[in-house]
C-alpha cells in the first residue's frame, strides 16, 4: 500500500486572518510539504496542474524535479496531468526526463480537471474533452513505446518520423493512472490499457465512488489484465486531526466553511457524514480510511488532501507529522492484514516494471488488443489442426 498526499496548489486566503500567501510563498510551501512527506515516511507526493489563478502549479515537472533533487525515496506523481490541453509530445518528453533525473521515482495521473476557458487558451474545446483524453493519451503511449512515431490524429499536428527524447528510463515508460470523478469513459480507458484508476473520492458520496471503481474493475477483467480485484485502484482522502474531535472541529471549521469547492454550502457535520472528509482524532481517520477498502475493495494507493482551504503551512506540516507517525503505520499494517495474497499490495513501480522485463504487457501500446489477437490466432491454429487431423 502506497500512502501519500496530493495538492491542488490553490492560493487561498486564510479565513481566520484574511492573509493570502503570495504565489512564491505557496510554491515554497508546496515544496516544504513534499519534503515533509518524505521525512515522515509517506510514499507519494502528487502535484496538481493548472494554468489559471488561483493555482500555482503550472510547471509540474520543474517542481517535481526540484523536489526529486532534495529527496531520496519519495515517489513523485501528478493529480492531475492535463491530458486534454497539454501536448502529449511535451508530456512524453518532460516526464521521461523527470524519470532520468529522479531515478525512476515518477508516475502520472491523467485528468481533465481544467475549466472551460483553459481549453481555448490552448487551442482546444472543452466539448472535445473525452476525445482529447482518448487521442492524446494513445499518442503518449506510442511516444513512450515506439522508437519512431508516424502519426496523424484529429487534434494535433501530424508527426512524421518523430522520436521522443529522451526515451523512458531503462526503456520503461512510467506507470499511469487515470483520474475521474464521474466520467465512465475514463474508467473504461484505464481498464482498456490496464492502467491504474484513481477516484478523487473526497467530494462525493461513497456509493458513487464504489460504482465508479466497480465499473473499472469489471472492465479491467474484461480486457484480460487480471481479475477484477487485481485492478490497480487509488483513492483520495481528506482529514484534519487533533487530540480530540471537538478540538479538530473547532480549529478546522472556519477553513471548511470558507473552502473553495464546498464552502458556504453544507455544514461540516453534513459534509463529513456524506463524504470521506474526517475531522477528528487520528483513530477516527484510521477507521474511516480502512473502511474505504470495504467500499471499493483492497486498493493500492491512498492520497490525502492536507493543504487546501488556506490552512497555514505550519499547521499543514504538523498535520503531516500526525499522519506520518500515528495514522500511516497503522493503515499500512491493517491494509496488509486484510489484503488477499493474490491482490497486489502496491501499484507497479519503476523497479517492478523493469523487473517484469521488456516482454511484459506494459511495453505494448494496446495490451488488450495484442491479447485478443493472440487468442484469435490460437483458436484459428487449433481449428486448422483439427481440420488436418480429420
Amino acid at each position, binding site marked *: 500500500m502506497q500512502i501519500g498526499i496530493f495538492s491542488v496548489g490553490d492560493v487561498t486566503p486564510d479565513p481566520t486572518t484574511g492573509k493570502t500567501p503570495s504565489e512564491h510563498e505557496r510554491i515554497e510551501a508546496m515544496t516544504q510539504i513534499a519534503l515533509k512527506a518524505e521525512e515522515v515516511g509517506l510514499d507519494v507526493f502528487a502535484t496538481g496542474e493548472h494554468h489559471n489563478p488561483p493555482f500555482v502549479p503550472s510547471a509540474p515537472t520543474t517542481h517535481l524535479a526540484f523536489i526529486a533533487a532534495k529527496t531520496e525515496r519519495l515517489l513523485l506523481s501528478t493529480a492531475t496531468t492535463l491530458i486534454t490541453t497539454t501536448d502529449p509530445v511535451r508530456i512524453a518528453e518532460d516526464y521521461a526526463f523527470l524519470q532520468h533525473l529522479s531515478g525512476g521515482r515518477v508516475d502520472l495521473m491523467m485528468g481533465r480537471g481544467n475549466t472551460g476557458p483553459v481549453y481555448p487558451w490552448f487551442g482546444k474545446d472543452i466539448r472535445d474533452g473525452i476525445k482529447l483524453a*482518448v487521442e492524446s493519451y494513445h499518442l503518449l503511449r506510442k511516444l513512450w513505446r515506439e522508437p519512431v512515431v508516424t502519426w*496523424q490524429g484529429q487534434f494535433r499536428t501530424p508527426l512524421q518520423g518523430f522520436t521522443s527524447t529522451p526515451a523512458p528510463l531503462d526503456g520503461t515508460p512510467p506507470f499511469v493512472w487515470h483520474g475521474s470523478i464521474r466520467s*465512465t469513459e475514463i474508467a*473504461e*480507458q484505464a*481498464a482498456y490499457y490496464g492502467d491504474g484508476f484513481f477516484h478523487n473520492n473526497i467530494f462525493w458520496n461513497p456509493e458513487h465512488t464504489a460504482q465508479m471503481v466497480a*465499473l473499472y474493475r469489471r472492465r479491467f477483467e474484461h480486457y484480460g489484465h487480471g481479475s477484477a480485484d487485481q485492478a490497480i485502484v487509488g483513492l483520495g482522502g481528506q482529514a484534519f486531526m487533533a487530540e480530540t474531535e471537538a478540538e479538530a472541529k473547532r480549529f478546522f471549521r472556519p477553513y471548511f466553511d470558507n473552502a473553495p469547492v464546498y464552502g458556504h454550502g*453544507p455544514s461540516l457535520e453534513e459534509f463529513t457524514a456524506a463524504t470521506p472528509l474526517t475531522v477528528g482524532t487520528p483513530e477516527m481517520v484510521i477507521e474511516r480510511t480502512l473502511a474505504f477498502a470495504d467500499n471499493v475493495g483492497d486498493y493500492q494507493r491512498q492520497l490525502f488532501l492536507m493543504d487546501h482551504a488556506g490552512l497555514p503551512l505550519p499547521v499543514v506540516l504538523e498535520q503531516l507529522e500526525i499522519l506520518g507517525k500515528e495514522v500511516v503505520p497503522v493503515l499500512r499494517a491493517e491494509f496488509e492484514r486484510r489484503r488477499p495474497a493474490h491482490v497486489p499490495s502496491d501499484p507497479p513501480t519503476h523497479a517492478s516494471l523493469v523487473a517484469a522485463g521488456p516482454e511484459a504487457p506494459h511495453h505494448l501500446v494496446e495490451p488488450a488488443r495484442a491479447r485478443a489477437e493472440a487468442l484469435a490466432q490460437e483458436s484459428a491454429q487449433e481449428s486448422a489442426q483439427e481440420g488436418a487431423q480429420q
Partner: protein
Amino acid sequence: MTRRIVVVSAGLSVPSSTRLLADQLADAVSAQVTARGEAVAYDVIELRELAADLASFMTTGGMPTPALARARELVSAADGLIAVTPVFSASYSGLFKMFFDALDPGTSETGALNGMPVLIAATAGTARHSLVLDFAMRPLFTYLRAVVVPTGVFAATEDFGASGLTERVARAAAELANLVVAESDHVAGFAPDLTAARRRTDGRRRTDGNGVAAEVTPFESLLRGHAG
C-alpha cells in the same frame, strides 16, 4: 396499470396558493385519467423542503443529498409532471429553477425530463404576470426536452374568487391525462412493459443522474478515429 404523476410545488408559505393550485390540478388530472379507465397516484415534492439540499448540491459541484437524490428518482420515473411556481420578479422563483437545474440535463437522447408530459402552472398577485407561463416556464421545459401541454394554468389571487379558473384547470388536466395515458398505452402481457426500465414506447429514455450508468461505451469505439 397505475400511472405515477409527480407534483412539484415551489410555494414557500403555509398554506400556499401555489400548493392550492397544484392540488386542484392534481384532482382534475385524477378525474381525467380515471375517466380514461386508468388509475393514477401522486408524489408531491415541496421544494421548500429541499431548499437546503439544493444549496448544498449547488455548492458541492453537484453532489445530491439523499433527499434530493430521491426527488430526482421520483421525477424521472414518473409518467407525468405537474410543475407549479409562484411568480417572483417577472419569472419562476429561484428555488423552482434550482430544482430543475439539479435534474439530469442528459444528452440528446437522455435526461431527467426527456419526453415527459408536463403541465405548467403559476400563481401571482396580479394577472399582469400571466405571460410567465409562456415566456419563462415553457422554454425551460422545452429545453429539457419535455412535452408541455398547450394549456398552461395561471392563477392570480383574484382568480381564486372568480369563475374561469376551474375550466382552464379541467382543460389542462385533460391534455395532460391524454399524454400520460398514451405514454405507455399497451395491453399488459401483450407487449413488454418498457416503462420499468424508463424506456418509453417512443424509444425515449429518462435518466435521473443518480449513480453511475451501468452501460459503458466500449473503448474500441471511443478510440476509433483517434488511434493515429
